[in-house]
């Protein structure tokens, strides 16, 4: 993840691009800010917004041909916003607020403006503000040029005089009734000149022209064939007051740069009218009709009503659907920047690791983003960089990684073929979390599958998702390699999966392996039990890793139909589905956020949910949302109760994985395989409160048992004289666990348990 890549990503997010109105307006009036102010009745702020970019607000409001409306997103849902009329509504109330602009200290350079129309006046205004000496030459006996051709109702002479005088009063030297000829121009002193004489005027500098006699002018810089002469306004294009203002301003920028002797062309993007990249989704916008202004202009109420029709265009598609993006109060363009700073050593602003580790990596953002930006991919890559450069806090994902190590330990993992032969054709890989949540379903599911799939083996282990999600690339690669070695030894069987996260891991890391879901097998061989019943219609929650996996999604729906279960779709389903909060190990980094994610998902539909990922099920049910797993419908009894059951706690999940292994060995080989570790002899007495404490402190029952075993066998402990309790510690790996306990008959009562990562090194010198 380097700087160039982050720049590209930043650029991919269009949220900060201008709305079409501002982009198509050649002087970029911030129409969105203007309407937003008017919508709250704040005409004063609205006026200031307009005046910031338009020095002749009333002339423009009364004459503008409104190029801003060309691409207005309101157009197709009721009609484009009446921008000029709204501008006039502010001017009529607040133009007395106009103050004299700040002028920079006088410079020596002198600029000649030829032609007193709008473009020449704008150029004069901009240059006088910058401190140049400006002399304006007008052929007629009044300024304004073409403005006088409007009828009085539209643009009264009094308005023209007022707005032009305000500008001349800044200190512009004006010469009326002077048409410059090559001879008279040569006698004038000046450093640069702006030619704004309108179409068909004379050519006092004998500038180069095109075959059709129009002047040769660079359309980006307005420079003519003579380096210090610039030209714009209606001598270049059909008359438009707003384009004249734009030309005058842009030419003034060029003249300033020319006189300062800096590049005329450097960084002049998006000057004048342009097409914006911003896309605003209007699929959910109701049509509202235009509020037309009265002949005398808008009343306050009507102006507010019209301004309220403005959609305040932006993108925010991803933020609307993702609780994580919403939580941090901004949008990906900003987040990418923040993440970059976080990685950067030069800037020393390593912000918020927590933010990077709170994304569920679910990819919904990419699905809704007009430019397909996937913040999950970004966050995952950044996690990888952090791990590689040693910037990931060691405790960030430790618990999940140890959970994975547990599942893949020789004691817990299992690799078995049906008839004891070396290879198999199919390999059932239920995934570590299904074993942890519902060990009783593992042998049942195996039996159903084995009834139709010849030579079916079974493998119990973790696919490696926690390593991938944590950014631990090396560990992930190693986990995949271990799996692949065993898979090769088994004769490259087809994988039968029951978890979409496992599928995601295998299909990214080992695409050569052929996979199918247990549900597809059930579908193909009509194994779904007929006429199951559930009291209500179930809403389907697709796991986030099932996004784009139509075959799995379809098989589940076919299965529900086959079982006679009524079901319906959530608004956000299939490719638009949301993560439950388990993805990306976000639950470890940010448990409160995961609660919000779950609440949001749970409240999207009144119905009970049906899903086909145990983690989704356990988390949603834990949040109080009755949720069934597809396997509950296939094998379960008393569905109402099953939908409401809470998932097992962390200790129980470890225990369950061992039980799943025992059951599978029994089923396939007929042999008992009791798996007990020596510390399991220590039966614990835990109050419900103590269980909660352990869960919160991420301490497993086996951790407690190991401490007690150590204390009881080594005697290394402390004794409390008053209570008789024993206090002891044990450090299996990185973490030191402490337990305060007492013996009660054959069991051990736990009074307290806590842990620390700091290491005890013995006496300080």
């Amino acid at each position, binding site marked *: 993840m380097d700087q160039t890549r982050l720049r590209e990503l930043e650029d991919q997010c269009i949220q900060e691009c201008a709305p079409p109105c501002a982009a198509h307006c050649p002087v970029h009036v911030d129409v969105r800010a203007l309407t937003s102010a008017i919508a709250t009745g704040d005409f004063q702020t609205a006026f200031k917004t307009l005046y910031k970019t338009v020095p002749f607000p009333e002339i423009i409001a009364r004459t503008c041909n409104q190029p801003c409306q060309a691409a207005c997103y309101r157009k197709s849902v009721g009609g484009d916003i009446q921008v000029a009329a709204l501008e006039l509504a502010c001017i009529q109330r607040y133009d007395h607020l106009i103050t004299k602009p700040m002028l920079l200290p006088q410079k020596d350079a002198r600029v000649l403006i030829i032609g007193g129309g709008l473009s020449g006046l704008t150029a004069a205004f901009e240059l006088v503000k910058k401190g140049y000496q400006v002399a304006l030459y007008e052929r007629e006996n009044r300024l304004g040029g073409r403005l006088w051709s409007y009828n009085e109702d539209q643009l009264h002479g009094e308005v023209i005089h007022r707005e032009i005088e305000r500008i001349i009063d800044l200190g512009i030297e004006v010469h009326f009734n002077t048409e410059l000829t090559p001879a008279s121009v040569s006698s004038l002193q000046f450093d640069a000149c702006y030619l704004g004489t309108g179409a068909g005027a004379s050519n006092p500098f004998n500038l180069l022209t095109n075959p059709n006699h129009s002047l040769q002018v660079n359309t980006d810089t307005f420079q003519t064939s003579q380096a210090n002469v610039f030209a714009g306004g209606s001598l270049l294009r059909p008359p438009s007051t707003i384009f004249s203002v734009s030309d005058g301003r842009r030419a003034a920028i060029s003249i300033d740069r020319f006189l300062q002797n800096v590049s005329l062309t450097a960084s002049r993007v998006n000057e004048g009218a342009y097409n914006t990249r911003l896309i605003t989704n209007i699929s959910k916008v109701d049509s509202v009709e235009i509020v037309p202004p009265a002949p005398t202009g808008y009343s306050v109420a009507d102006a507010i009503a019209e301004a309220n029709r403005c959609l305040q265009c932006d993108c925010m598609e991803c933020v609307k659907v993702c609780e994580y993006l919403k939580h941090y109060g901004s949008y990906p363009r900003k987040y990418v920047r923040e993440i970059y700073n976080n990685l950067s050593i030069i800037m*020393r*602003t*390593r*912000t918020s690791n927590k933010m990077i580790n709170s994304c569920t990596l679910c990819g919904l953002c990419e699905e809704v983003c007009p430019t397909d930006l996937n913040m999950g991919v970004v966050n995952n890559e950044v996690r990888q960089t952090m791990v590689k450069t040693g910037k990931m806090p060691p405790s960030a994902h430790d618990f999940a990684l140890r959970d994975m190590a547990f599942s893949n330990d020789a004691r817990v993992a299992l690799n078995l073929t049906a008839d004891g032969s070396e290879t198999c054709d199919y390999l059932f890989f239920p995934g570590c979390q299904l074993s942890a949540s519902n060990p009783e379903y593992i042998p049942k599911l195996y039996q159903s599958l084995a009834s139709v799939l010849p030579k079916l083996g079974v493998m119990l282990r973790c696919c490696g998702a926690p390593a991938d999600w944590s950014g631990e690339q090396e560990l992930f690669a190693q986990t995949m390699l271990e799996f692949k070695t065993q898979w090769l030894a088994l004769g490259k069987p087809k994988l039968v999966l029951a978890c979409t996260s496992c599928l995601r891991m295998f299909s990214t890391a080992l695409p050569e392996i052929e996979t199918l879901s247990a549900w597809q097998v059930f579908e193909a061989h009509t194994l779904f039990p007929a006429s199951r019943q559930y009291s209500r219609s179930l809403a389907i929650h697709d796991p986030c890793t099932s996004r784009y996996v139509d075959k799995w999604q379809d098989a589940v729906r076919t299965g529900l139909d086959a079982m006679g279960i009524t079901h319906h779709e959530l608004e956000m389903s299939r490719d638009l589905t949301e993560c439950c909060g388990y993805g990306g190990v976000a639950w470890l980094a940010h448990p409160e956020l995961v609660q919000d994610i779950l609440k949001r998902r749970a409240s999207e539909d009144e119905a009970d949910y049906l899903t086909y990922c145990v983690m989704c099920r356990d988390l949603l049910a834990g949040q109080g949302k009755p949720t069934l797993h597809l396997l509950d419908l296939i094998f379960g009894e008393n569905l109402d109760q099953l939908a409401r059951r809470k998932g097992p706690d962390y200790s129980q999940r470890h225990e369950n994985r061992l039980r799943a292994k025992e059951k599978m060995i029994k089923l396939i080989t007929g042999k008992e395989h009791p798996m007990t570790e020596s510390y399991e002899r220590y039966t614990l007495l835990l109050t419900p409160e103590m269980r909660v404490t352990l869960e919160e402190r991420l301490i497993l029952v086996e951790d407690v048992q190991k401490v007690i075993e150590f204390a009881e066998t080594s005697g290394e402990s402390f004794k409390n004289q008053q209570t008789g309790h024993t206090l002891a510690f044990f450090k299996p790996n990185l973490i030191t666990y402490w337990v305060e306990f007492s013996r009660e008959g054959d069991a051990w009562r736990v009074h307290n348990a806590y842990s620390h990562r700091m290491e005890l090194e013995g006496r300080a010198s």
Partner: protein
Amino acid sequence: MPDCARCSLFQLESENEGCLHLNRPGGLELTNTALASCKLPASASVLDAACGAGATLQSLRDQGYGAIGIDLSMEMLRKCALLTTTQAHCNQVPLPSLSQDAVLMECALSLSNEMVSALTEFYRLLRPGGWLVVTDIYIRELHDPQAMDCLTGSSCLSGAKTEVEIRSKIEGAGFSIRNWQDQTLVFKQWLARMVFKLGSLDAFYRQLSACETGSQALANTLGNKIKLGYYWLSAQKTG
């Protein structure tokens, strides 16, 4: 310039675990690393501006430098009995212009509310090509500029600045920064010692802050909006 005797941390600490200016994060080792980056000639003249109880001064002397210390606090200077010191403000040092090869300012530059005038004074004292060596706290991350107000209420952090500000002030005074090294780890270790000593970071912030409400605000600010870091730099008088 800090007046250690008035700093709340000073009152808290005993002599062997002095306050921020006395028992600085990184200690003498950090000072020596920073000095080494200047490759001063043997027996160079070095001014220790804000010398406190004189630990650095003594070490400079031991290394063979011609070391002079100034401090505002007489109480401090009395502890430096055997060293060359004088009571002075660091924007008015009673030494001739162009007389020093190096000026050292430890944990005191940003605390001085007259940073610019102090820098101007150092510039005057230094020979062309002479070195300014600074160690100090700085603002490593600023998430909310308004949070800066909160620091003002604390005795020791009120003048803390960002790297950009510090660099521009020093360069603006006519120096070229040759080395800048982040030493935040050292600062964190120092804070960790404070946690063990006082019970929690919160208790530490309470010490830093004048009043109870101030400490709440300070704890919040330092938790969420401002992250402090620590650095040393060496800069050379140019022009």
